[in-house]
């Protein structure tokens, strides 16, 4: 390869990497990086599921994407899978909404009753013997639990959560 050819190929490589206008490419790269960070931090948050409380819907170790803006324009609905924030968004609870504000909720031998009426839960697999006396959900609160009812109720994290703690929902 002649020195001239070497120079041309080096130029082509440089052009491929940083474009014809490196400063413009740098500006674009910075804007893209900032945009990617903001979207991944405040809009579509990648989440890594740990634990078995949402089995069989969400398996331990799987990765999903959360939508942190899901409840910006409407309130959570029954059956929604929601992310519940603790101090921040680096560790969150993943639960399903079973009861809405003002409703009564109870478990009778594994069956969920909302306002005294049995509610079908197609996402729950197998039988269980969860029992919980009837309780009324306060305004601005939601009743949440995991889908894995094979875990005894005394070992399961379930209960009411304030609306402000619902950070978003699962996108996929």
């Amino acid at each position: 390869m002649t020195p001239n050819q070497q120079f041309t190929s080096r130029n082509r490589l440089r052009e491929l990497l940083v474009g014809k206008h490196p400063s413009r490419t740098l500006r674009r790269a910075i804007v893209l990086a900032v945009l990617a960070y903001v979207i991944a931090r405040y809009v579509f948050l990648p989440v890594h599921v740990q634990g078995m409380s949402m089995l069989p819907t969400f398996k331990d170790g799987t990765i999903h994407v959360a939508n942190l803006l899901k409840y910006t324009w409407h309130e959570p609905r029954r059956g929604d899978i929601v992310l519940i924030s603790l101090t921040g968004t680096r560790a969150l609870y993943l639960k399903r909404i079973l009861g809405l504000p003002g409703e009564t909720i109870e478990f009778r031998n594994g069956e969920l009753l909302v306002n005294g009426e049995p509610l079908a839960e197609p996402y729950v697999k197998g039988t269980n013997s969860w029992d919980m006396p009837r309780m009324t959900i306060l305004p601005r609160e939601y009743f949440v639990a995991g889908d894995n009812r094979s875990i005894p109720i005394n070992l399961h994290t379930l209960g009411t959560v304030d609306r402000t703690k619902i950070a978003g929902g699962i996108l996929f």
Partner: protein
Amino acid sequence: MLKKTIHIKPLDLQVPLWILLVLALGLSVYAWTSRDSWLIHHRLSKMASLVSKNAGENVLVGLVRAKEVVGFFTEHPAISLGPTASISDRDEISAAIHQLRSGVDTLKINVRDTKLNIAPNRTEAVMNVTVEGVFTVGGETDNDLREFQLDWVKNSDGEWLIQGAKSIQTIQRPPALGRAF
């Protein structure tokens, strides 16, 4: 013969110098104001590593570590771990830590999120912290997520100590079910 001379205008040097000075001043102010925050976070991560437990840890080492954790608390802290469980004595803290660590084969405490508010007098601070405990019992690994509020106070030696701690129930368990195990 043409003699080349290089002229450096005083202003050319002054501008970058001023920028550097302002940057240095800004950094100093930032370092000074965030010093307490750094100290508290450092103590928290030290405490987390002391509470953590490796496989096959010697009993004596465990006792020493539990005793060391006590040094992060004031003489009579107010610790509330639920509606019925509370601790207000350093020996009780040591015993509780020892009991917690003895019940598991391995334990890794990860500090996941923190939110710190330092009082304007810079001697008191309130911190919300989410910790994750990954533990192994009988070969099975599990994890637990908890949120706490820690009240920090700075002693006369400039050392930050925990004077109060309480567990925050993000998901309020129905009272009829009692405490989760």
